[in-house]
């Protein structure tokens, strides 16, 4: 006797027969009939016509029959709203039943009936059930509030169910708490404003943490996910939450483990990075992540996608676990590809030998997609781990020898990247590559090969023949290959003009006359004009130095990564996209961000919350020089986000085209008044603030004749960068512009560079006023500033160190009492000590000297013959730094203790002290 019997039908028609059975007087018959109806419903047959007959069976003492009718109601009430009203009375009656099971069942089913008329009747029973004496009923009612909210949010708010739900967070039964949390987080998620309707505070968080230990595994997931949305007020609270959550890492349920990992990863942001606690926490995170990889493949996949994020955020956690990511031949392909990706991220000098021998093994597997990715991975290792480049190249050569078509093609694509990273190092292998020319049939591989030929045209004897052979089928090539061919031939012509004139004319006419691809035509015209008007300029443009590529190109953009870390274990973490980008109806939702560490709040607070929209500079240059960097480096799943790790001068590349077009010239040559004023003030100022001598920032040999000397200074509260430009080239330079990369203190030029034309062997001085309103991004070391200077010749990049004293602002004097309390408030872990050598002068002269540099002495004490100076200073980003300077008369060294909420600034400040004190 199985349920399949419910599918036997007679000729009269199923519905008709069921109808008569449902109206049978015998209970047993009725029940059998309802079961048949349910069975039909299960397989998707429409049995809504039986609605009145089924509802008639509802009034019964038999629980199974009641349940079955309820199941039916949930499915069909929506299509028969008027009939559904008939059931309301029974529901209301059942909500008063002495049996808690029936009460719960009634309130649960009522919530599932999505008919407006019924929801009105639901309110009263629901209110009672939320206060029911039996926890089973309360727990069911909690979920019912979420259901009701989904149907009518205003009703829930008006009837005060949200407050009742909040009260349930303090319920004595952990199961009820868990369900209340689940309901609340769902309500928060779907709130129309995107603002959570219910915020958690310290008190509720404590209740949740207590319930966490006792509720079911599913409840634990809900509670952990809610905890992840809470930002503790200080480090101590964060630490205690961490301690109470860590045991969840040993749960058998993978969802619980990953949710716990999410909370811990988020809280670790608040904990100071160098504390022991943080270190042990990191250690505890690794084993559970590794264990997830021994579960079913689907769990592995989700875990791997999340590990990919974790490895990018905190590479240290899994750095010793490389081996668990080694691929087994019978892993599903989606697991294999993810493992490979993580292997490359973990690759370092320590394990590169192992990784390479594995990758080589994978490159001979059967699955084509996987093999390709493995070959690419070898290339990425070469770029990432410099000492291994040689081995990677020889491995790639071995693979080319296998003559397996797709392996060869993929290898050529990555070798092109290696050439870009290490120019003039591995050219000896070009001949081997050329041997495989005929087998290349994929556009990307062909384009890469053509690029290599063009780039090294001077070393390949028969480069012209090779390119000529490509030209025969020019019209049939993919646009990518056509563009490369055009550029390669022009490069060849510029390098070896003797015999290639015909070739270049041929390709230019092909590109400009026979092609209907606008990109190709435009580029053809540009080359043509360049070559005909000024071959020297053409050389500068086409054969310019290319910016180096780095291994970072496939990393997620940092702000996106931080946002995704907040979404570990969720769908967002699988797609590597913020939920706002793919969850429907969530466009208004607020974006989550990692909590900022205290003290450095300002620093990270001003960080741009959105991904930078400036187009990736690399791809711009790449396109011009037809290197197609963007496409040659695999960017899995992040292609929609600009990688933008260099966004200097992102938009300003247009001038490169014309070799200094008119607009740029005029903008550059008109000196701006602000700049001049700054200059005048700079000269006449009487402030004695220490200004370091100018240093050479860009030597002429790197700047193609442009030499830049510079220094930072602070005059009258205004930071400026004093620059000396010298033209050591033979030609005049024009079209100057300057831009800063994101830096730790948000320094940015407040006016354009006021340098017009720079004649050969001319030297110009300029002051560039700076503000601190620019984009902020932590640099390593902290005071590094990366600068790009553009002129008609090229773009030059250099990095300099900001002397931190220029960032000390004038109102850095603290009140005595405030100083004292702040000193006590800052934990001892944030104190750093330093010994100053060669200290000359008395305490007073020192204090005086300090004041000129905006380091203010708050108090002076004499303790046991030692002079103690208490000093304070404030940085432009509002970080307060408190200092205690201990001087012993007659001794040339002094002890300096520093306390600050963000101790990262300590090192540059010590350096500033050193330089200031050395002044006579």
């Amino acid at each position, binding site marked *: *006797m199985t*349920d399949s019997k419910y599918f036997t039908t007679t000729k009269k028609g199923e519905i008709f027969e069921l109808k008569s059975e449902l109206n049978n007087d015998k209970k047993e018959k009725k*029940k059998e009939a309802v079961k048949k109806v349910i069975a039909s419903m*299960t*397989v*998707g047959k429409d049995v809504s016509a039986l609605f009145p007959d089924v509802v008639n069976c509802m009034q019964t003492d*038999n629980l199974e*029959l009641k*349940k*079955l009718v309820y*199941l039916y109601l949930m499915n069909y009430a*929506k299509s028969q709203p008027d009939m559904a009203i008939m059931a309301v009375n029974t529901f209301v009656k059942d909500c008063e039943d002495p049996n*808690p099971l029936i009460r719960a069942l009634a309130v649960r089913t009522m919530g*599932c009936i999505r008919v407006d008329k019924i929801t009105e009747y639901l309110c009263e029973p629901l209110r009672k059930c939320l206060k029911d004496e039996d926890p*089973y009923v309360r727990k069911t009612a909690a979920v*019912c509030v979420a*259901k009701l909210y*989904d149907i009518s949010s205003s009703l829930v708010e008006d009837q005060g169910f949200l407050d009742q739900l909040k009260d349930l967070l303090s319920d004595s039964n952990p*199961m009820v708490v868990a369900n209340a949390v*689940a309901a609340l987080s*769902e309500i928060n*998620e*779907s709130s129309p404003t995107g603002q959570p309707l219910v915020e958690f505070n310290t008190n509720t968080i404590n209740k949740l943490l207590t319930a966490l230990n*006792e509720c*079911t*595994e*599913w409840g634990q997931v809900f509670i952990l996910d809610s905890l992840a949305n809470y930002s503790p007020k200080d480090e101590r609270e964060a630490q205690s939450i961490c301690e109470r959550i860590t*045991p969840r890492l*040993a*749960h*058998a349920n*993978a969802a619980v483990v990953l*949710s716990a990992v999410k909370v811990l990863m988020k809280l670790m942001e608040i904990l100071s990075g160098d504390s022991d606690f943080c270190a042990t926490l990191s250690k505890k995170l690794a084993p*559970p992540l*590794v264990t997830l990889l*021994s579960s*079913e493949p*689907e769990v592995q*996949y*989700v*875990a791997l996608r999340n590990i990919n994020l974790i490895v990018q955020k905190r590479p240290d956690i899994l750095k010793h676990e490389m*081996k668990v990511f*080694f691929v*087994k031949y*019978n892993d*599903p*392909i*989606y697991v294999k590809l993810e493992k490979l990706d993580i292997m490359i991220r973990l690759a370092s000098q320590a394990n590169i030998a192992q990784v390479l021998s594995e990758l080589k*093994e994978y490159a*001979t*597997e*059967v699955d084509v997609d996987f093999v390709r990715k493995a070959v690419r991975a070898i290339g990425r290792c070469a770029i990432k781990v410099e000492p291994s480049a040689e081995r990677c190249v020889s491995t790639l050569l071995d693979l080319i020898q*296998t003559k397996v078509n797709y392996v060869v093609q993929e290898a050529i694509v990555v070798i092109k990247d290696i050439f870009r990273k290490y120019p003039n190092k591995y050219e000896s292998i070009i001949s081997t590559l050329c041997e495989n020319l005929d087998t290349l049939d994929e556009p990307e591989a062909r384009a890469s090969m053509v690029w290599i030929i063009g780039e090294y045209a001077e070393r390949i004897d028969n480069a012209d023949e090779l390119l000529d052979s490509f030209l025969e089928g020019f019209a049939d090539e993919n646009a990518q290959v056509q563009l490369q061919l055009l550029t390669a031939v022009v490069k060849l012509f510029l390098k070896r003009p003797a015999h290639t004139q015909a070739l270049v004319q041929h390709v230019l006419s092909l590109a400009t006359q026979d092609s209907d691809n606008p990109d190709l035509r435009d580029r053809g015209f540009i080359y043509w004009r360049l070559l005909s008007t000024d071959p020297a300029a053409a050389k500068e443009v086409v054969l310019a130095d290319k910016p180096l590529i780095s291994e970072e190109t496939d990393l997620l953009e940092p702000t996106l990564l931080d946002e995704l870390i907040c979404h570990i*274990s*969720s*769908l967002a973490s699988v797609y590597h996209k913020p*939920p706002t980008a793919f*969850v*429907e109806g*969530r466009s208004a939702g607020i974006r989550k961000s990692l909590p900022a560490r205290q003290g450095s709040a300002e620093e990270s607070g001003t960080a741009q919350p959105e991904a930078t929209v400036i187009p990736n500079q690399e791809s711009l240059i790449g396109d011009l020089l037809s290197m197609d960097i963007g496409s040659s480096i695999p960017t899995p799943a992040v292609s929609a986000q600009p990688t933008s790790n260099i966004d200097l001068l992102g938009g300003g590349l247009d001038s490169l085209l014309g070799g200094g077009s008119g607009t740029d010239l005029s903008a550059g040559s008109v000196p701006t008044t602000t700049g001049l004023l700054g200059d005048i003030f700079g000269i006449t100022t009487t402030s004695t603030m220490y200004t370091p001598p100018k240093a050479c920032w860009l030597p002429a040999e790197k700047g193609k004749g442009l030499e830049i000397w510079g220094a930072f200074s602070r005059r009258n509260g205004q930071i400026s960068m004093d620059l000396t430009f010298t033209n050591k080239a033979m030609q005049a330079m024009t079209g100057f512009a300057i831009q800063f990369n994101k830096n730790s203190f948000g320094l940015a030029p407040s006016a354009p560079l006021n340098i017009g034309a720079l004649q050969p062997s001319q030297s110009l001085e300029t002051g560039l006023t700076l503000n601190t309103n620019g984009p902020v991004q932590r640099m390593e070391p902290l005071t590094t500033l990366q600068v790009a200077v553009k002129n008609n010749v090229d773009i030059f990049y250099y990095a300099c160190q900001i002397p931190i004293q220029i960032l000390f602002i004038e109102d850095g004097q603290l009140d005595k009492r405030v100083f004292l309390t702040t000193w006590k408030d800052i934990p001892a872990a944030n104190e750093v000590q330093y010994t100053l050598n060669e200290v000359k002068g008395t305490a007073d002269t020192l204090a005086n000297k300090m004041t000129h540099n905006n380091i203010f002495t708050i108090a002076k004490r004499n303790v046991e013959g030692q002079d103690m100076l208490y000093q304070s200073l404030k940085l432009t980003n509002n970080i307060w730094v408190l200092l205690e300077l201990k001087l012993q008369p007659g001794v040339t060294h002094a002890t300096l203790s520093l306390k600050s909420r963000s101790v990262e600034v300590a090192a540059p400040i010590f350096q500033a002290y050193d330089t200031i004190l050395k002044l006579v």
Partner: protein
Amino acid sequence: MIHSLFIINSSGDVFLEKHWRSVVSRSVCDYYLEAQRANPNDVPPVIATPHHYLISIQRGGVSLVAVCMQEVPPLFVIEFLHRVVDTFQDYFSDCTESVIKENYVVVYELLDEMLDNGFPLATESNILKELIKPPNILRTIANTVTGKSNVSDSLPTGQLSNIPWRRTGVKYTNNEAYFDVVEEVDAIIDKAGVTVFAEIQGYIDCCIKLSGMPDLTLSFMNPRLFDDVSFHPCVRFRRWEAERVLSFIPPDGNFRLMSYHISSQSVVAIPIYVRHNLSIKTGEQGRLDVTVGPKQTLGRAVEGVKIEILMPKCILNCCLTSNQGKYNYDPVSKILHWDIGRIDVTKLPNIRGSVSIATGANTSEINPSINVHFTINQLAISSLKVNRLDMYGEKYKPFKGVKYITKAGRFQIRM
């Protein structure tokens, strides 16, 4: 959370659907079926469609596809689906299309009990069994006679207690507690026989039939071996942290008490070796010679040895002789199965012979791998040892037993 569930058979028909919120058209499954057609064995577990997310698992020839509409932890859904399959297996001793079809109504009742509005409600097998009695012939007959149903009409006792995994009033005449320590060796061994990677994935599975509310304490001789542990919710984590003992009130019946992971701290012993030689020359017959022998087994016999060799594509057929066990070669999947059984140390199992190669095939890219299965009884390869089991809270004296087994997990040898 989980909106709907579809169960799909191997030929791509949806044969069961359950909706916990509004009804989602079954046409959404087309996205899943499309992915399945593209890659029958490797369907990605998470599929995005324009309006829904499909999270799926495959078991016993059926696919369970959960439909979600909002941001949801995928592992949560995957773990839940695993639990659904476990429950089906628990109830009907199998989870196949025919079994589900035979028990439509019970399946439907179960699904309704397990999830409410997409939130898991009751997934503990002992609670479910109290709510909905598993079908068996005796009960079906009794129900027909007495008119009773297999749906309980009172609240299950364990549901809201602090130990939801155990019901009250359990009674046995023979009180017994058996523990199986099962260790699986996952390894990759390269051509030269060097271990590239090895780890042990261990489980302690219990069968506990004890009356009342026993409180058990299990201790190990060498608990420091573990790299990572995950516990059944019944284990008191604090005591483990402090004393490294497992203290728990067990669920009734069969369950997994703990799983553990051993890899980094200790060198994993490899209990078996395979000496292999496959020589191939184009256009000729190739030769295959494989010998299997025990390595670090601490004197225990290696049993149930099975070897699967994934041959290169170019090999058409094999003509081999083995001194032990049977072999067969499937020319379609290119897998050579060799069922050896127990390894006799005095006469090591060997298989050798010729293989025929497709003419003109490219033989340079040969990359066969061997999958090894074996079992070693009465040995935990990590040398983990249970020290003692104590029972508190009840007066009777239970029978206790511990069994150790070592098995091959994903044990691969590259040729």
